[in-house]
């Protein structure tokens, strides 16, 4: 029982990080219509930026802020430099996707070249190994931070999307792009904001997962894939849906580990997903599919 509870707790932590990834991906996907695989690259980049700045003596919170800003900047660069020209040329989604795959390869390998392809740890943060005891359960400080910051960021994104003028403009653009162009909502500006916000926020799980576990240049694609599964299962376009399903997936993956040997767990998740998507392509929470096209 103790083991199960601890696994659930760890699963919640992992799920929160996953949830933020799923939410930001969903936000970008629904608004711009781009299957932004390069999101995985930014996730990794955030962690490495924070590692670098912490390493040169910048206080950790400042390093986090720099990493978030840096990731957002790279997001803008990708949108302005690659996606926008492609969208203006009305290239097919396939072309945009291939470009995005190319970007992940560039980011990941650039990180491997600059920071070495090996596993890196936040050696300079001694507190990352301490943990809080909740009765018989343990939660490490990085885990605790992951949960808090992810929740705050997720909530922030929800509020932004529903309460601010820019957020509403983004939703208008998402619901009908050609209309948005006619209505002078300047969709291309909106895209830049949305990608920047998504990129900045996705740096957060990248950093805290890195502090908690370790950084490696190539591991993020699997995470993103799970997040995308969460997005689809949660109903494309529903931000809370994406977060919730991601949370459930995180816990489920950990619990599955308790039942079957670990080496099958990832394959099992995908197998379940593929069956699911065949049965119910619209997701759990949405009946109508809201695909940006």
């Amino acid at each position: 029982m103790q083991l199960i509870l601890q696994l659930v707790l760890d699963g919640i932590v992992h799920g929160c990080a996953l949830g933020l990834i799923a939410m930001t991906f969903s936000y970008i996907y629904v608004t711009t219509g781009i299957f932004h695989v390069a999101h995985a690259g930014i996730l990794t980049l955030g962690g490495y930026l924070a590692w670098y700045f912490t390493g040169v003596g910048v206080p950790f919170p400042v390093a986090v802020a720099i990493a978030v800003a840096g990731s957002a900047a790279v997001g803008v660069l990708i949108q302005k430099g690659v996606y926008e020209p492609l969208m203006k040329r009305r290239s097919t989604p396939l072309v945009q996707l291939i470009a995005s795959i190319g970007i992940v390869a560039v980011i990941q390998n650039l990180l491997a070249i600059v920071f070495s392809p090996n596993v890196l740890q936040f050696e300079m943060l001694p507190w990352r190994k301490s943990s809080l005891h909740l009765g018989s359960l343990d939660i490490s400080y990085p885990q605790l931070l992951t949960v808090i910051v992810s929740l705050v960021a997720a909530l922030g994104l929800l509020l932004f999307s529903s309460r601010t003028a820019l957020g509403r403009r983004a939703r208008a653009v998402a619901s009908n792009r050609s209309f948005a162009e006619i209505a002078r909502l300047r969709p291309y500006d909106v895209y830049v904001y949305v990608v920047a916000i998504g990129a900045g926020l996705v740096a957060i799980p990248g950093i805290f997962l890195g502090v908690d576990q370790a950084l490696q240049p190539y591991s993020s694609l699997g995470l993103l894939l799970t997040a995308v599964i969460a997005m689809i299962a949660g109903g494309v376009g529903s931000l809370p849906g994406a977060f919730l399903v991601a949370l459930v997936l995180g816990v489920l993956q950990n619990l599955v580990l308790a039942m079957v040997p670990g080496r099958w767990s990832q394959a099992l998740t995908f197998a379940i997903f593929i069956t699911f998507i065949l049965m119910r392509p619209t997701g759990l929470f949405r009946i109508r599919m809201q695909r940006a096209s």
Partner: protein
Amino acid sequence: MMKRIRIRLMAAGMATILPLALWSGNAAAQAKEIVLGAMLPLTGSAAQIGLEEQNGIQFATDKVNAAGGIRGYKIRIVYEDTQGKPDLGVLAFNRLVDLHQVSGIFTAYSSVTLATAPLATRKKVFVLNPAAQTSKLATASPYLVNTISLAKDEVSIIAKYAAEKLGKKAAVYYDSGSVGIDLRDEFKTAFLAAGGTIVADEAVEFGNTNLRPTLLKIAAAKPDFVFMAATTGPGVTGDQISQIPDYPTAIGTSFFAPFKNYPVTVYHTLVKSSVTGETEKEFNAKFKTPDMAFFSREYANASQIMFKVIDYLLEKGRPVTGENLRTALFEVKTFDTPNGKISFDTNTARREVEIHKLTPAGRTVVEKIAH
């Protein structure tokens, strides 16, 4: 696929043109030269090790050539990069044999060596393995000789030691890579034979850094000790163990050393590898290294064995072919090395293995075992 075919076409094209070109130019030099091959991970993630290995071979080769070669024959080594990938290893092997016509090859990396072993048998090429440890290498090819102890030897030593000194209830923690799975199987066999029981058997995905769930399950099984066989960043494992309450004592083999940051006591095996102080000084001067790395030592020592076998063949006036190199090794059988006498009863050398005890306070050698 197209890529492979292309590689093949190009290789074949070169295979027909190059030898002709080389032949005319090198005819004179060829008479007094013996060419050997080395397929090492010179680029890629294992490049660090590959370069150490290359230095070891080159050091020994330069030394023997400086002393006039082996009975007047200079030694030349052709290095091929495998990146530690078996498919590139096969290409490298074919290039060495078909293009450079070598009859003896130094190998590295378990998967590369395993992949090329059948080719060694097919083409009768002598392969010397000073580093790869997977147990399947024991019988992979009659032409493959291992100068290092294989994983199963180390595992059986540590399993026996643990059964006697640490307890009868073991857990196994391994990764889904080939080495991890092999070691798990071998440990299970050896430990059950020594009268123990396995209470938990948990794997982590190769390359995954979220180890907690698996570590938790190990700790929850409450074994007397856990056999650790996973390569994911040693520091990461140590860190996450430190967050698991009551994690058991760990044991392992040299493959997973150095067990960095482990907050618990670790017992592990280590194959003893030494060179003379003089050699080490010379080596460090030549390559500007602070100390002679493990793999440099092993490859330098293995080169000595290779040279000795060649010397034996030349002395007997027999041609240096793969087949002859192999028979000669078993005819010589025992070699004097800085690690003491190494003898070959089988394809794998008998070596001295140490058991080290590692506590957060420091390292002690608790036992030395020759097997």
